[in-house]
């Protein structure tokens, strides 16, 4: 999974239009809800083999913060 595919996954979790996310968005301005949180954790586990702790997600303030949590596992 590369960065663009990661953004596409986030857009799907939040039911956003394709191409909506660029990385600078604050989560408070997005429909980032409990379901998106659980979907994110499942995606990281299944597709990136990465165990993301819920506490880490609770501290995330932006899409860039979410990206940082998985950046090491993404393809270039």
């Amino acid at each position, binding site marked *: 999974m590369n960065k663009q595919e990661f953004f596409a996954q986030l857009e799907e979790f939040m039911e956003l239009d394709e191409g909506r996310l660029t990385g600078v968005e604050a989560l408070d301005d997005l429909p980032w*809800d409990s379901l998106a*949180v*659980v979907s994110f954790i499942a995606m990281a586990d299944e597709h990136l083999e990465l165990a993301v702790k819920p506490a880490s997600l609770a501290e995330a303030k932006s899409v860039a913060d979410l990206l940082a949590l998985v950046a090491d596992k993404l393809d270039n």
Partner: protein
Amino acid sequence: MLKLEKYGVCLRLIGPDDLEMVRQWRNSPEVANYMAYREHITPEMQQNWYKGVCERGDLYFIINVAGKQVGVINLKNIDFVKSESEGGIFIAEKSFQNTHITYCASLCQGDFSFEVLRLQRGIIHVLDDNKRAIRYNLSIGYKPTEEVEAGGNRLYTLEKSDYYRMSAKIKKALQI
């Protein structure tokens, strides 16, 4: 006093000392704006509400996470003949809103409802414009019905089998 502890949350049955805190939570715009009843709740109204809760045997719990009180979850109108009850939840503490804790509390109460009370079905009413709550409830297995109360409050039902199917996915994702 009834306490349910599972999945990292503790659900403690609400008592008279909790009423003012819950009233303030319930009156806050972040909570009230998602409720069918949005008028200001006075201390007297809250006392009357609690009297009704006790008379009906409704179960309202304070959600505790690591010693912090963060919201309310409930089973009301418990009907052992129909084998169903109506659920509800709100997270008042901002730092816990839109986190996995909502699921942890729902699963803790859901397990209690289906495994201890041995009910077969859950119901909820959700406003048609509350997209966040609709997404959430669909994700734990609720299904919409055609029954809508005045004001757009739609009835959703949760069958036991759907709860177990969906909760298994959530538990796997959260590793709980």
